[in-house]
């Protein structure tokens, strides 16, 4: 094998240095590129519209202090919710088991399920409206 005919790239160097990565890209362009699937673009754009991706992209635009504030707010809120859940759960459980044993049927489960479903719907509506708000906000 003629070594002068081949060029070897280190992937680790490419991942660390833009110049190395670009040199590899140049070499690939010289030899010819593969055609990316036609649906790749729509698939990427669709994923970029997902809330989690947008949130990360949005928070990266904030200053370090604001990012830290947001993060601590999120953690505190999660901790508060967990504590609230821990306090409320035994009482709720007790109430449900008492009423369940009294009625000896399952409408209580149906009721709880319906309540959960209702809340779930409300949360998804809220997040949807929150998400839609961003477009006019940036349009202005």
């Amino acid at each position: 094998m003629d070594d002068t005919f081949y060029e070897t790239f280190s992937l680790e160097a490419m991942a660390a240095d833009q110049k190395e990565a670009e040199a590899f890209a140049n070499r690939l362009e010289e030899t010819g590129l593969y055609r990316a699937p036609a649906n790749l673009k729509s698939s990427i754009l669709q994923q970029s519209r997902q809330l989690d991706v947008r949130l990360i992209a949005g928070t990266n635009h904030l200053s370090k202090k604001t990012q830290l504030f947001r993060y601590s707010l999120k953690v505190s809120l999660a901790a508060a919710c967990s504590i609230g859940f821990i306090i409320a759960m035994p009482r709720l459980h007790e109430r449900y088991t008492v009423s369940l044993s009294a009625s000896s049927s399952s409408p209580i489960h149906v009721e709880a399920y319906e309540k959960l479903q209702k809340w779930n719907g409300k949360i998804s509506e809220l997040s949807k409206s929150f998400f839609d708000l961003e477009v006019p906000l940036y349009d202005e």
Partner: protein
Amino acid sequence: MSRINADAQLEQWIDKYQNLIYSICFQLTKDHFDAQDLTQETFLSAYKNLAYFDGRNERAWLCKIASRKCLDYLKHSGRKQIPTDGQFLITCSPAGPPPEDEIIDNALNQELYDCCMKLKEPYRQVALDYFYHEMDAGEMAEKRGKNLKTIQTQIYRAKAMLRKLYRKEDLLHG
């Protein structure tokens, strides 16, 4: 940069560099599906980290992200590449025929078609439409009158099945 500008920037980058990034990923992974996933991840990572981009050389920046994604993938899968002294080495042959050659393209397409045909319904038709005919998930949902989420789930499952089939064939052909 506002959200709308970021979206426009992403779209522009995809139009301009999707073939390059896909080629880098394919060259490094030698797997059509992994290359597709890694290309997606590269652009999404660029979108998320647009705030950190210095605005100078987007091509080099995207190539570096793609290389990092591929390196992480290869390190985790530990399958395709054999590390030499802690380094992943890629050899490029400038004398090789261009991969966009019609013969190679046809052979790849035929292999994809054969693998799609080995799947059971509804995954066969989903795989044919999405991977072979390169239809959009939205278009497919409209065509079949199904929920987009259902189609996306079927695509996800079909992709996993195709991956298994490809790997089985790789093993068979050495």
